[in-house]
């Protein structure tokens, strides 16, 4: 029996109300409200993820990873953050699923089944860094509205699919095409089918990059429901919200797309820097494109106590949106001096890079290890929280872990 139907049947909800007043520590369950435990199953089982993941929000589901869980070179599903704007589609039939490609700047309008896509176009696999635009929001002061992400809203997994540009080429582009938008099968939180929870997209130049995929596989398997089963648009290096899940329609636009969460203040930052807490007009906000340079120390987990020797190997990843990371450094003296880390090349463009270093501590005591990446344009991560913005996006302040040396 479906839990939701069971609970919402009028007979039982009145029983719930009747006994709610007498049994449950004298508290009235408000009319129409079903307790969290009744609404949804265990998220860790539901999404097959680690119980160490941090559930920020259960309706919609927003679940965060942690620095030390992201130590794998390729992020497995169990440690991938989950970010939703709406309600995930419930009944997905892969046999009847269709992707429609159309728009005012399309030369034709075509519909593809999953097998059409898989058979007609060449497959590519890329490891792509997807980071939530609001990763790090938690640290902004004054606080910014939204899910309070710490450092774990990033992953870099393998995506397999067809190139968006091959599909666009099949439909044909008019010369006035400027933006490629997605529409999806998820449902608005209000359950109003007229409303889109989110419909974003990318400028044509990003859409035509080799690495921008219409993906059907994650790490070699069907994409899990939480990450967009059966089809996801994947554009690495940009806020992960441009990588639309449960893809049903692609629209080639002759204007900058104006779908849900494209306009207003969503996924936008002030055009010019503002003072913390300042109110910014919508017209002075610009769409976030490439994400800024950033890095994470993924090993060891913060809070390590060294008791045998004063030397420690650290590991982590660094990424820089559309760019490459050119330099990786660490500091154990709060940024007074910096030492280099070894840094790998990305396995492909838009994949994160791995770093390592051997850290030697001069004496016993409390230390913080700070990590700082520098991108191919010479921009480094700031040590304190970067420019405040109303929605708390793009916090790329250096990652820090705490270590005690007690040898």
């Amino acid at each position: 029996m479906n839990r939701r139907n069971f609970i919402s049947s009028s007979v039982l909800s009145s029983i719930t109300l009747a006994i709610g007043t007498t049994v449950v520590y004298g508290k009235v369950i408000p009319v129409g409200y079903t307790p969290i435990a009744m609404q949804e199953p265990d998220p860790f089982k539901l999404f097959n993820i680690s119980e160490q993941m941090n559930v920020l929000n259960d309706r919609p589901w927003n679940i965060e990873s942690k620095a030390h869980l992201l130590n794998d070179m390729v992020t497995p599903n169990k440690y991938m953050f989950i970010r939703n704007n709406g309600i995930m589609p419930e009944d997905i039939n892969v046999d009847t699923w269709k992707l429609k490609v159309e728009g005012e700047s399309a030369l034709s309008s075509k519909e593809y089944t999953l097998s059409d896509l898989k058979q007609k176009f060449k497959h590519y696999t890329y490891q792509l860094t997807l980071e939530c635009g609001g990763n790090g929001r938690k640290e902004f002061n004054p606080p910014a509205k939204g899910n309070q992400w710490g450092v774990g809203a990033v992953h870099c997994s393998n995506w397999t699919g067809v190139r968006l540009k091959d599909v666009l080429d099949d439909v044909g582009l008019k010369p006035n095409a400027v933006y490629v938008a997605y529409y999806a099968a998820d449902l608005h939180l209000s359950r109003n089918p007229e409303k889109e929870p989110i419909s974003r997209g990318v400028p044509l130049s990003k859409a035509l990059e080799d690495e921008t995929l219409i993906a059907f596989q994650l790490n070699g398997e069907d994409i899990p429901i939480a990450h967009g089963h059966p089809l996801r648009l994947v554009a690495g290096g940009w806020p992960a919200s441009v990588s639309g899940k449960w893809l049903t329609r692609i629209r080639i636009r002759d204007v900058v797309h104006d779908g849900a969460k494209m306009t207003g203040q969503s996924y936008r930052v002030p055009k010019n820097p503002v003072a913390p807490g300042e109110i910014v007009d919508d017209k002075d906000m610009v769409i976030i494109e490439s994400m800024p340079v950033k890095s994470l120390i993924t090993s060891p987990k913060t809070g390590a106590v060294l008791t045998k020797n004063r030397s420690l190997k650290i590991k982590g990843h660094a990424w820089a949106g559309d760019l490459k990371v050119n330099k990786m450094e660490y500091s154990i003296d709060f940024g007074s001096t910096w030492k280099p880390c070894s840094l790998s090349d990305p396995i492909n463009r838009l994949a994160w890079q791995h770093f390592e270093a051997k850290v030697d501590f001069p004496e016993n005591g409390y230390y913080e290890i700070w990590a700082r990446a520098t991108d191919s344009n010479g921009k480094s991560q700031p040590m304190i929280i970067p420019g405040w913005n109303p929605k708390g996006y793009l916090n790329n302040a250096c990652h820090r872990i705490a270590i005690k040396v007690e040898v």
Partner: protein
Amino acid sequence: MQPDQFNKQLKLLRNGLCLFVIALMSLGGFVVLYTFYPESSLFTVKEANQKQFETSDSLSVPLVNSQEGEYDLETGFIEDVGMSAVVNNCTNCHSARLVTQNRMSREAWKATIKWMQETQNLWDLGEKEPIILDYLAKNYAPESKGRRQNLTIDKWYVLEQ
């Protein structure tokens, strides 16, 4: 006299029967609910929710802002005047966690409500709006965090070297 007494007794009997039926229905409801839904929070709520608070690492209900404050076990909201209005109006589309993890001034909470009304199908809150705003502004007000906070460590551990 006699019909009056008869009526009185009938009334008493009716009332008694009524109470009995209500009691029986409640009991029946309990049994039905327990049969179909033994893990219901109505039966397990105390342990389950207390556990949730203890293991704040995985399912974190933020315990902030109020030292002696009590928390509603169902939602995690701080118990205070206006909480039921917040539950009734603010948890229909999204869960309480979206509220409790945020900290805003009264103006910012108001702007958030306005944004939800303009874009997210939130209804007019009517006379409840000031009650809701008072509750949110008092219990979920911003605290100054500075430009970078100290690191907090849940648990120090000895690293195998």
